[in-house]
């Protein structure tokens, strides 16, 4: 039994750190440290650097850029990116549609899409959620009607992250409305965002940012060859896709970075006659979260070690639900801690929603005051999306406790 990484793994970690240090633009890193948005081009540029290094899609098949790494290597890369902090490869590309195409797509689809997907030449968004169906994904209503060599799509998707940047969207649509079970009769279709009949409407979130959208389909004609795999088997591919994100679900690196930042800021703030960082109540709060995070990190490593051993690369382990539940609770706790640091200075709304903003307006209060409350607001989503924490509890209740 051994908690530390092997020397080979440690060497890889050092390589990742060096790569980030030498290649990540300082201003991008600084924006991320402060909780500000980063621009589309920054994300694209960085993913291309990672891809050039072979690190954008290490978990893909070797033929399409994969590295055949162990889950531990994948985790080290993600954890270092989160800790730096640096942008992660766009999940819609590398963890979602990419693996689906690589596994279930036609040779033509692979050739057409995979290189550009890895290199972020194509920016994908996800057309799964609908207004009527949140956690109940299979209750979707969007239809794809076959007409000759085309599918004609009608319906509405929502919570579509960064659709405003997207070149393509992968859509779950109902191709057989008469299917006996709601999970049947769904197909997985790739759609060019420039196709006539698609309308993207921004949804503004309570933090003031614009990261999600509604995407409307009105008689959108899509070539039939954009169907992935078999017609009416889309639910299987969706499940495959949703089970694919196991190495970064706990977002330990994100919380580590946030706590580091909180310490830095609290060392600069005064509370009464002393530094805030020296106030016992603040230190105890901080320590409480650090303990939880340490436990989570080890739980994450245990799940990884299990995955490495079983060889079921990325197969959904119901214990991942622990990672999601605790990971989101801890991330949310760190945002509350940031509010504690800033105190009353969190109240003014001084956040620019413009990712290209140079941030040169005189800030009110300490460096991160402007982003404390918006981050707190925005991060409430973490326990909602990707299967709410209530859904995760249902999974554990059923799959582990046998209820």
């Amino acid at each position, binding site marked *: 039994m051994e908690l530390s990484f092997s020397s080979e793994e440690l060497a890889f970690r050092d390589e990742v750190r060096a790569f980030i240090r030498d290649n990540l633009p300082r201003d991008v890193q600084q924006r991320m440290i402060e909780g500000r948005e980063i621009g589309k081009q920054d994300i694209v540029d960085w993913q291309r650097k990672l891809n050039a290094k072979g690190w954008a899609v290490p978990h893909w098949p070797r033929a399409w850029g994969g590295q055949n790494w162990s889950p531990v290597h994948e985790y080290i890369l993600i954890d270092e990116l989160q800790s730096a902090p640096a942008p992660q490869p766009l999940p819609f590309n590398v963890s979602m549609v990419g693996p689906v195409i690589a596994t279930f797509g036609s040779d033509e689809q692979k050739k057409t899409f995979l290189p550009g997907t890895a290199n972020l030449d194509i920016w994908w968004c996800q057309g799964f959620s609908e207004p009527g169906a949140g956690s109940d994904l299979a209750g979707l209503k969007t239809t794809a009607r076959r007409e000759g060599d085309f599918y004609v799509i009608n319906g509405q998707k929502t919570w579509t992250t960064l659709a405003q940047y997207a070149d393509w969207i992968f859509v779950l649509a109902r191709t057989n409305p008469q299917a006996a079970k709601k999970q049947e009769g769904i197909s997985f279709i790739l759609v060019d965002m420039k196709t006539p009949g698609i309308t993207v409407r921004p949804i503004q979130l309570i933090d003031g940012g614009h990261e999600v959208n509604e995407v409307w389909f009105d008689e959108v004609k899509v070539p039939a060859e954009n169907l992935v795999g078999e017609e009416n088997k889309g639910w299987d591919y969706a499940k495959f896709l949703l089970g694919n994100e196991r190495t970064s679900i706990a977002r330990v690196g994100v919380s580590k970075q946030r706590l580091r930042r909180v310490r830095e800021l609290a060392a600069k703030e005064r509370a009464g006659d002393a530094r805030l960082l020296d106030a016992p109540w603040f230190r105890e709060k901080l320590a409480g979260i650090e303990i939880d995070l340490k436990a989570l990190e080890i739980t994450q490593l245990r799940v990884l070690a299990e995955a490495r051993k079983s060889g079921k690369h990325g197969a959904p382990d119901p214990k991942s639900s622990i990672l999601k539940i605790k990971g989101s609770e801890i991330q949310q706790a760190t945002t509350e801690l940031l509010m504690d640091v800033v105190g009353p200075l969190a*109240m003014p709304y001084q956040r620019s929603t413009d990712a290209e903003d140079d941030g040169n307006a005189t800030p*009110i209060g300490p460096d991160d005051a402007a982003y404390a409350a918006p981050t707190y607001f925005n991060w409430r989503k973490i326990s909602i999306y990707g299967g709410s924490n209530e859904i995760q509890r249902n999974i554990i209740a059923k799959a582990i406790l046998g209820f």
Partner: protein
Amino acid sequence: MDFDFTDEQRLLRDSVAKLFANRYGDFEKRNGYAKQPDGFDRAIWTEYAEVGLLALPFDEKHGGFGGGPVETMIVMEEIGKNLALEPYLPSVVFAGAILRHGASDAVKDEIIPKIAAGEAIIAVAHTERQSRYDLNDVTTTARRDGDGYVIEGDKTVVIGGNSADYLIVSARMSGARRDRDGIALFLVDAKAEGVSRRGYAMQDGLHGAEVSLANVRVPASRRVGNLPVLERAADEAIAAVCAEAVGVMEALIAMTVDYMKTRKQFGVAISVFQALQHRAVDMYVAAEQARSMAIFAALSAASDDAKERGEAMAMAKSAIGKAARFVGQQAIQLHGGIGMTMEYKAGHLFKRLTMIDLQFGDADHHLRRLAA
């Protein structure tokens, strides 16, 4: 022991509720009000004046209606339910209390009628960059100069400061940064020479300002109190904001319960899921306990015993802050994505609850104050 309102109080509540039903019944209108230059709609403020709300807490001899903390509670609870944007709390409740307790009769006779008529908005400029929630942490200075004072310093997060006609500024006349002695309050004309302001919206849609005072001259007659006056007024404002929080929580829980009954997942309304039901129950229980503390705060706010009053407010604000955080977070969780969108009221109720916790000191701050 009596928790009923008098007939007059019921009448007050109904008239306030009616005013807000007209103005805020359609929640989308709020967005329009917020975009106006002051961050609220002056016409609504005039209505406050017409209904008598702006004169409510003042003595009849100064043109007020002689209302007490229970009347303020009634108004604030409705403000909370409706997320009203007008600067009632900073101007009428908080600054008003300073004037009531600290100003000379001459100043009262001059200013209170203007407040009552909706012609003067006052904001209290007490927070400084380093002060956090401590009212005695003051670096802004006031030095005697002839028959007046000269004030110098920077104030931050002055709620209502953007639209204020007057600012009440806490300034240090002697002593070290955190000494309790040596602090005075001054009523400063917001357009006086040397006063500069940078107004902004706040996270909850209310407005505030950064205020700089560079060699601002104030006549001696405009000295309107000291630290105990500021603390007493803050205690009254805390009682008021507790009542507001109760209104916000009531509205938010009602929205959440309604949403649960209509929102379908897996073919059934999500209100059938027992784990979610119990969460809603815990929210309700927290809100009822918070309501008890808001009543406690209101009924303690008029006490002349500063220690007893301060303890009551610390208890109330701590309880309210904790409940506000729990109810707000769980309401968003139970709503799912829709609760996080700008166009839906629930998210704004959540944001106001979050800011209420920060206003006048958060739950932990007051717990420590009580334990100290």
